[in-house]
């Protein structure tokens, strides 16, 4: 299952220009599936970077606008798009000029694969 998903993520990486990495983790930042090119920044792949999203999305959900779904962080040379699919977190890392809208539209395509993975993570002790 995970191999198929990894292959699919690699296929998506090729489809979007400037997308360096797709990462599916649990909310603590533990990687479950990873597809990355060699351009992906190592600092952004560490659990402490990814787990920060867990806190940020919790805080953003308290702003009175409903549950936070996505956080887009633009840096000088990268953009990081993180999606709240609790208990899973999807992280996309791309170049600063990468097509943000195209990455956001990948959500619908990845979603069907997440159901089984989310069940496994939710049942883990």
């Amino acid at each position: 299952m995970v191999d198929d998903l990894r292959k699919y993520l690699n296929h998506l990486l090729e489809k979007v220009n400037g997308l360096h990495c797709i990462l599916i983790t649990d909310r603590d930042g533990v990687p479950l599936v990873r597809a990355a090119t060699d351009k992906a920044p190592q600092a952004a792949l560490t659990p402490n970077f990814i787990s920060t999203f867990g806190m940020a999305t919790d805080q953003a959900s308290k702003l009175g606008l409903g549950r936070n779904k996505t956080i887009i962080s633009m840096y000088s040379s990268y953009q990081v798009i993180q999606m709240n699919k609790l208990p899973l977190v999807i992280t996309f890392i791309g170049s600063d000029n990468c097509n943000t809208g195209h990455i956001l539209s990948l959500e619908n395509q990845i979603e069907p694969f997440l159901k089984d993975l989310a069940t496994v993570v939710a049942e883990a002790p």
Partner: protein
Amino acid sequence: MEKELDRVTDEIMLTPNVTGCIFADHQGLCLAAKGNAHVDSAGLIVAISEQACKIQPNLKPPTINLEADKKQCLIQRHGTITGMEAAIFVNND
């Protein structure tokens, strides 16, 4: 701020056979959408336009016509760096 864009969108929607209209910025983020144009398609429209521009990079961006049995989708880019993408969905009848 977006009043002018809304006005243009409404104007386009009044054209006969037009069923939808969407505007996106160069990052693929939707600026305005009306009719049967889906907000999520903004990114894909910009991606299609980017690929088409690579065919002849020295010329100005082409207008793309995606033609199906019953519908057409016309995509046009305005400006190069901070450009805007417009897509119009038209019925063939």
